[in-house]
């Protein structure tokens, strides 16, 4: 008896309340999104809001059940849980039901379950377990390899299901790893990758190489102030360009100027690196490596975009970046979504008064595009409230994670925040045209049992761990 009272007292009721508020707001918006005069009872289980009520009821039961477990249970059984979930991921590839080109669902009669949703908390547990293990050091190559394995095993299996969106979620663990000591360059590198990707998509690759070539000596001069060395570097590069240009002309190869620059840069980079190492010139190597890798990256972006990505993925990115505009074709979803949100204005059109989200102008309006209903019916006030609620929840999760004495619990807490953050950013970003269309649900909001339950499990395991923070040191 004593123990139960303790749990009740030590549970963080703020986060539980936030959870309940978000789930209820989600349900109200699903109701509005699929509302139809013919089916006015909220308990009509042929309608999505009726079904969602059932999912919500079940989610509450799941949350309560998690509280019945001993809080050490999850740490002890991490690997079996991870293994079983992996097994489900493999089985769904074999026995799963194929819908919309994805093999991501188990189907039992009218009941459908998406195992990849439940893989998230299992992976999070596994990471927490591994990173919290005794004498674990994140700088160790073996450790990094193992972390990579834990993350990319489920990630790869989900890619095989052809569910690119769900697999991208695993990128979110970078926040968790960063908190646990991964070099900050990773975040910096991720940021640079995004910036370079955008530049590579929007600007001609020849122009990029030229700008970088001009920037490199300037940056070097600012850092080192040795004009002579800058001159030598430029000299080497000029000779290399002349050389390759000559070869191209003499042998009548028809390589474009871009490739001439590309080859010349590589040749001069090698020479400069050798010289810089011998003479120990500060910053030279760093800048050269950065220059070469940036140029290679922009080249790779072009290649990956045209040869690796599928047509619909290219379309979505092109549409997002405004390279192409086709509001009735590939851009239809996002355009309709923006119209719906934009038409909400400051205070919204009012409950059930939304027209854009009503007649399915916005596709997937109760699942991936549920945020449109908030925007249309509740206006700017509504969207800010929802974003604030999510942000408070995320910050609260960081706060709770930091107060854990158990490393396992702290890491798990950061994992929960990371996953929720990724979902929220990508989902809302997509509805307001800031992120490409990636079909992942808005936590606690979107229609669907699998996603609601998986987020409930993910969150409540942490709440359970937190409620036990005074006892456990494991």
């Amino acid at each position, binding site marked *: 008896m004593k123990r139960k009272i303790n749990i009740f007292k030590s549970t963080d009721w703020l986060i539980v309340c936030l959870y309940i508020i978000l789930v209820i707001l989600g349900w109200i918006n699903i109701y509005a999104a699929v509302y139809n005069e013919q089916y006015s009872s909220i308990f009509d289980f042929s309608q999505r809001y009726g079904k969602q009520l059932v999912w919500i009821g079940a989610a509450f039961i799941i949350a309560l059940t998690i509280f019945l477990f001993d809080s050490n249970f999850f740490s002890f059984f991490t690997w079996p849980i991870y293994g079983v979930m992996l097994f489900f991921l493999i089985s769904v590839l074999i026995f799963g039901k194929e819908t919309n080109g994805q093999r991501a669902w188990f189907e039992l009669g009218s009941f459908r379950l998406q195992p990849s949703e439940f893989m998230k908390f299992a992976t999070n547990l596994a990471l927490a377990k591994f990173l919290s293990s005794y004498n674990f050091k994140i700088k160790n190559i073996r450790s990094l390899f193992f972390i990579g394995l834990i993350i990319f095993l489920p990630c790869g299996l989900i890619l095989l299901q052809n569910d690119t969106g769900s697999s991208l979620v695993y990128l979110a663990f970078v*926040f968790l790893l960063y908190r646990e*000591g991964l070099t900050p360059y990773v975040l910096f590198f991720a940021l640079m990758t995004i910036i370079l990707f955008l530049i590579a998509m929007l600007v001609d690759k020849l122009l990029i190489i030229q700008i970088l070539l001009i920037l490199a000596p300037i940056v070097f001069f600012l850092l080192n102030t040795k004009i002579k060395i800058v001159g030598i570097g430029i000299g080497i590069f000029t000779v290399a360009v002349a050389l390759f240009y000559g070869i191209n002309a003499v042998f009548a190869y028809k390589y474009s100027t871009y490739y001439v620059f590309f080859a010349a840069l590589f040749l001069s980079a090698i020479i400069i690196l050798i010289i810089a190492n011998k003479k120990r010139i500060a910053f030279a190597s760093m800048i050269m490596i950065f220059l070469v890798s940036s140029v290679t990256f922009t080249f790779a972006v072009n290649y990956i975009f045209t040869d690796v990505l599928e047509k619909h993925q290219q379309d979505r990115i092109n549409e997002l970046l405004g390279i192409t505009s086709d509001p009735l074709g590939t851009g239809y979803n996002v355009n309709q979504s923006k119209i719906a949100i*934009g038409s909400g204005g400051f205070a919204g059109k009012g409950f059930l008064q939304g*027209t854009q989200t009503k007649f*399915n102008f916005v596709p997937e309006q109760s699942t991936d595009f549920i945020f449109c209903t908030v925007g249309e019916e509740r206006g700017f006030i509504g*969207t*800010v409230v929802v*974003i604030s609620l999510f942000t408070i929840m995320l910050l609260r999760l960081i706060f709770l994670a930091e107060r854990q004495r158990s490393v396992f619990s702290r890491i798990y807490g950061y994992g929960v*925040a990371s996953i929720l953050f990724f979902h929220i950013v990508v989902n809302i970003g997509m509805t307001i045209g*800031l992120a490409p269309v990636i079909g992942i649900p808005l936590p606690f909001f979107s229609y669907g049992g699998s996603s609601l339950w998986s987020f409930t499990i993910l969150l409540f395991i942490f709440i359970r761990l937190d409620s036990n923070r005074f006892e456990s040191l494991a």
Partner: protein
Amino acid sequence: MINPYSNRKYIIGGIFIAFALIFVFRLFYLQIIDSSYKFSADNNSQRRITKYPARGVIYDRNGKILVFNEAAFDLMVIPQQTKLFDTVDLCHILEIEKNEFTKKFKDAKLYSTYRPSVIVSQISSKTYAILQEKLFKFPGFFVQGRTLRKYPQPIASHILGYVGEVDPKIVAENAYYKQGDYIGISGIERTYEKFLRGQKGVSIFMVDVHNKIMGSFAEGKFDTAAVIGTDIKTTIDANLQLYGEKLMSHKKGSIVAIDPSTGEILMVVSSPSYDPGLLVGRIRSTNYVNLLKDTLKPLFNRAIMASYPPGSTFKLVMALIGQQEGVLNANTRYPCSKGYAPLGGHPKCHPHASPLDLSNAIGHSCNSYFSYVFKSVIENKKYHNTYVAFEAWRNLALSFCIGKKTGSDFSYELRGNIPSIKYYDKIFGKRKWKASTVISLGIGQAEMGITPLQSANVVAIIANRGWYYIPHIVKSIGSNTNDTTLARFKIKNYTLITDTNIFLNVIRGMSDAVESGTAAALKIEGISFCAKTGTAENPHGKDHSVFVAFAPTNNPRIAISVLVENAGYGATWAGPIASLIMEKYLTGKIKRADLEKHIMETNLIGD
């Protein structure tokens, strides 16, 4: 516990807040500053109405309409936009049973609650007029204009093909088509679908809660105009086609006639046929099933999809190949003793004078003669061995498009067959066969197969003394006479026969057949023509009656191939039909009314 990275919580928290702020700014812009998303008609909803263009009209070679369009209306429903309505009243207007309506409405809801579905298709214009006035009582329902195919005469069904609802597989592959669209399924409708269909358009309207159209959405900025389908002029002669179909009534078989000077197909009859009007609109599915069940296979286009042994028609090609290979000339004579003596009288032959020269052998269709020719071709000393010679023979035959698609603009054209060395190696063992094993190839029997279209093309080649245009049914597309789609029909093709004189010897034989040979009874007053009778052995029953001809002998204007299934000798049924058609085409009238009546009234199917 001191954690060296504990300060990183501020960075992570900062990132979370930064993203939240970016989103709030973006939403502030979208929802408050940018006014482009707040159109005035906020509380109206959009309705997209597809504008279906009329399909292109198909004409015959003289500008006579073969198929055109008539207006039809579909009653559509968007289940989610419906309110409670008086089902009985609506059923009364539409003149349909309530059960049927309820079922359709349920299906529509199952398909989608917000996408339009057809509730009743092809409403008559009278019903449409009544419905139009009362439609305000039925929110969620609206009428969509369509066009349906209409045929002035029930002819040429196999050539024109038919139009039907698009297959879900095509919808998945081709973004142009949506569920419920029409598409050409066979014949010209299929081959030239791209031109005939035109381009769908869409109008987006704003509709208020009372189902009243309030005006176009965004001043029609997103509307697209429908582009009407392109008209097509075929090479078919409608009168001749009708005449051919009448002659072939109550008979199984086919007629193909080509203008050899252009490769234009004048007529294609496949009998039994069907009324193309049966496969239009609401009645299509029931009629289609009935036609499919019919044991006489009226949907089957025998002219391009049935392969028959070419029979003695092939002797003409044999005569050409023999001369080309240098083992035969006009004066070559072979004996005949009611059959091919070296193999004990097989293949058999009918009684006639012996020995014969080339022209008489053609005229009398001597089986023994062409067995000798085949043997001499296959055992030709100029080749290293039998098999090299066989391959040379086969290639020569293939160059006449026998056993090879002609490349016409028919969908589903059959290839036909000339057996290969590989095939016989498999049957008799590797290189364990020789000329005498496969001797019946010389008289167009055995495994050889040819379609009536290919057979007519062979005759056109002979009529032209060595060349042909790919036979085709479309003369021009729209007003553009130089469409690239039709460019391949304007290129002269040649066979592997190198000397025109070789053809003259064969033509003399075909002329003899009409003057004094097997086709002597079929002369047309005032017109000299060339012909060859044939009998295609049919392992499944009575032999097929075959007749090929071209007319006039000089500057031929028509090359024809007629096949009547299970009708015996070529001169009996196929011959008179060909003769009558040539007379009709060249003179415009028929002088042999008795023959015509006799042919038209004879029933060779037996029911």
